[in-house]
């Protein structure tokens, strides 16, 4: 008796969940799926469609197959901008991740007095919109009225020309680093918190100091988080837009309309009215990002296996 009574209940429950588990699941996912399709898949499909045409001032719109892609692959300005971003990536990303990692380790070490204040302080720039950040740094870099220039003037030397051809990439890397160190730091810090404490205890028993623990336990343990940060950085770098777009106003002769691939696509669409070609360029850029991200994954995976 006792064993009988719960059975039907169980059966009913089982029946309800097994009747249309898929439907229920889809129902839950539906809001996301709708937005995903409407805001991502459809526009992407439309852009792909657009990239197969050419809309000319004379002659109107004609189907051109892959012509836009062929042109883009031979477009010196596009290639140059992609290479420029690759250079930017090589300088900026390691610097930024190193600082973020150091900050995360420092806060995690428990040796800091005001760890929470530090954590918030480093994270705060991420809360500043990139437009505002760029305007602020643009002012700081100013050759005449900027604080750096004035300070250097007081000391009797000249500040570096931050907005000149030679310095621009570095100046921009500095802005981006400032903006995103905190973001990466939080990801790494969260990963550090998830490392089981037994490992530290074991390390302590084995006689490892703080540095040794960081190097041999913590960093290997958060490798997946580091890879994640790296991939975000690949994507962010190749999509750089707001910073060069705003700095262009301050240094029009240094930053041209093809300084970054995204800026180039924007100029093509809104200045040259070449929407179709811009769509092709954007797709190629997406391809570059996919390849670069995959390369990062491939290389780091192989290393971790080895």
């Amino acid at each position, binding site marked *: 008796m006792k064993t009988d009574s719960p059975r039907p209940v169980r059966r009913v429950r089982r029946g309800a969940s097994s009747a249309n588990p898929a439907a229920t699941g889809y129902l839950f996912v539906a809001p996301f799926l709708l937005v995903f399709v409407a805001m991502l898949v459809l526009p992407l499909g439309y852009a792909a469609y657009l990239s197969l045409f050419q809309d*000319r*001032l*004379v*002659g109107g719109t004609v189907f051109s197959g892959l012509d836009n892609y062929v042109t883009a692959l031979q477009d010196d300005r596009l290639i140059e901008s992609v290479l420029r971003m690759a250079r930017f990536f090589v300088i900026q990303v390691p610097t930024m991740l190193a600082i973020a990692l150091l900050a995360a380790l420092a806060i995690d070490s428990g040796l800091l007095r005001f760890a929470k204040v530090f954590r918030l302080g480093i994270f705060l720039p991420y809360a500043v919109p990139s437009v505002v950040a760029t305007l602020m740094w643009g002012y700081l870099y100013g050759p*005449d*009225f900027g604080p750096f220039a004035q300070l250097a003037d007081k000391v009797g030397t000249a500040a570096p020309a931050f907005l000149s051809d030679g310095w621009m990439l570095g100046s921009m890397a500095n802005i981006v680093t400032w903006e995103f160190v905190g973001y990466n730091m939080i990801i790494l810090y969260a990963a550090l918190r998830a490392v089981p404490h037994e490992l530290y205890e074991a390390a302590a028993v084995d006689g490892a100091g703080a540095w040794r623990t960081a190097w041999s336990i913590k960093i290997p343990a958060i490798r997946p988080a580091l890879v994640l940060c790296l991939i975000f950085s690949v994507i962010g770098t190749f999509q750089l837009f707001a910073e060069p777009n705003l700095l262009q106003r301050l240094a*029009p*002769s240094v930053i*041209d*309309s093809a300084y970054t691939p995204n800026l180039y696509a924007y*100029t093509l669409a*809104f*200045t*040259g*009215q*070449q929407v179709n070609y811009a769509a092709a360029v954007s797709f190629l850029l997406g391809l570059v990002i996919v390849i670069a991200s995959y390369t990062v994954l491939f290389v780091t995976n192989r290393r971790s296996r080895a």
Partner: protein
Amino acid sequence: MPTSSRSIRRRTVVGTALALSVSLVLAACGGGDDESSSAPVQAVSQADIDKAMTTPTELTFWTWVPDISKEVALFEKKYPAIKVKVVNAGQGEPQYTKLRTALKAGSGAPDAAQIEFQYIPTFSITKSLVDLRPYGADALKDKFVDWTWNQVKGAGGEVWAIPQDTGPMGMLYREDIFAKHGITVPKTWDEFAAAARKLHAADPKVSMTNLASNQNGVWMGLLWQAGVKPFEVTGADSVNVNLNDENSKKLGTYWNGLIKEGAVSSDPDFTDQWFQALNRGQYATWLTAAWGPVFLTGSAKSTSGKWRAAPLPQWDASKQVSGNWGGSTTAVVAGTKNPIAAAKLAEFLNTDTESTKMFANQQFLFPATKALLTDPAFVQQKPAFYGGQTVNQIFADISGTVDTNFQWPPFLDQAVNDWDETVGKSFADKSDTGAALDQWQSRITTYAQNQGFKVGP
């Protein structure tokens, strides 16, 4: 106040090409503008016009002229059935981007819009403007200064817009700086260069003028003055591109030389630094347009009384010629359901005596109508900022000397963008302007060919 000035600064320079193309084609046909323009057009009857102007209608009008509701109110008073909704959709480029988007989307475009001279061909080639001839625009020709009318005319004789304000170019100079260094007002560009060198030797901190490296408008105005024809629309699908011919190179060498010597600066204009330099007397002259005097009054207050106006120096001392930088028109946007009312709005705002006077005296738009340019109440004003000089009279005279045959390309944005990155950059970097002109030529040629044009010369 500087409605036109800011827009101008953006790219006003380039606007005028349209008119040129028209007149050239007409000239080539050997006919006057009037015959060719009036022949194929079906005029709207007066009865239709009367009916449209008494039927309750709401018009949408995009413009960035401040306080234009005052002039619009005059229109609404005359035609009580018509209500006009004035929208500021951004100044210059932002408005054009919105306009293009609305036209592509097929909804949301206004009935009438402010378009700068240099942009007319860019919009007429995409069939975005309404030919105003059926609504009686041809009859307005004689009210306007000749060159402004050429600017709004299309290659087929169309009238694409009604001129609103203009920017014939002259030179504002610091009388005190000239006096201090014994410089007389240069009449020719040779004298100007000599004065620049003299000034540079005496006081290296002051440059004779600033040729802004981001200001295609001034460059086009100077080309215009020199009689260069950078763009000529020679047919519906063909355009001549002459950006690096002998005359352009001469101009390039001239300015490049002065910049390299340090006698002329090349700071970007309308920036903080530029305003400071004007206020501190670091530029002895400003090569600017007729809207410049009022603009300067507001932005360099500390220098009141020290400035004077004069015509641009000349290449040929025996001829007075000038170019134009800036100025706007009112155009009727294709797809409007109320073309008659919109055309009449464009006509009224820019030809009505009271409305045009208001533009000139309250919004300080430099007039395009002959009536105002000879109106003593306007030209005899003696602003204290210019030591009581009749500045308007000087620019009114200059307006009469603007070359009538200058044309703008049907792809202005691209032309300006590429100029910034080639010729403008050569000013900023003090590099070879000649090579930059070649580069500009080749970039634009490629662009035009990709857009399906047959590219001459």
